């Protein structure tokens, strides 16, 4: 693993790429996500297996480690909440 990313925009684009790749969502749909776009419970593609894949892909691509106790429905609720979490792990 290389050093963690340190650019806010890069975390944003990495998160969008992971959502595309893991959930198989169209690029245009993911590009339109804003902070309030709901995720877990709102997208049929986003089931519990997808949560596992999403977290592991984020770890691999951002060079971070996510603990189980950090994972809950609030953190996965919206694009904004997930982005805030990813940034806090990456930019610390």
């Amino acid at each position: 693993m290389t050093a963690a990313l340190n650019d806010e925009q890069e975390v944003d684009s990495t998160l969008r790429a992971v959502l595309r790749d893991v959930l198989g969502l169209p690029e245009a749909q993911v590009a339109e996500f804003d902070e309030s776009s709901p995720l877990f419970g709102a997208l049929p593609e986003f089931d519990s297996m997808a949560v596992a894949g999403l977290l592991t892909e984020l770890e691999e691509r951002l060079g971070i480690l996510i603990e189980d106790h950090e994972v809950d429905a609030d953190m996965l609720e919206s694009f904004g909440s997930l982005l805030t979490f990813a940034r806090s792990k990456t930019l610390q």
Partner: protein
Amino acid sequence: MSAGGLHYSTYRVGGRDEWMMRIGSGPALLFLPPLFEEMNRTRALLAAVMGTLAGDGLSCFLPDLPGTGESERALEEVSWQDWRDAAGSAFEAAGACASVSLRGGALLDEAAPVRWRFAPATGASLARDLSRAGLMTEGGGGYAPSARLLDSLGAAEPAPGKRVRTLRLATDRAEADLKLEGPPLWRRAEPQSSSELAEAMALDVSNWMRSCGVC
């Protein structure tokens, strides 16, 4: 038994016969698939890679590990050692000279003197995936491996070797001999394949096996 270029044979492990599928004829490669749900998600990708290599004069064997696919054993009763034994036994039964593994399959390729790996995963990260899949649902995901298997899995690492080639996706930050563009198909809930990725994988396998004198 054969149909449409597919041949089925068996290998023996734990006192039972388990199935393996073969495509093509020629120098034999043992394919070791990803584990658990990822296995189903990448079946089409592996079959595409095997088909391309078969056209290149190689025979490609894909075993059903005990407790998976057509195996008559229940996954709950299978131990990590059973899977290690299965990979070794399948390697011999196939008369293989090299292995091709994807993700968790790389944890089982020790028997092969020449090993090609795509996106190898540590047992710890696979065990974490399984437990995470259970975090958001009551009772866990669709797979019920024994606690004993999970313990052993969590400690498993791809074995080092002299003739090991590792490829990863361009999006993966871990080290690799070569990185390929493509989607992480093992994450997709709906099984999919990518013909571009399958072709790029098959080409690299073929070149690597030639450079190692396997074929």
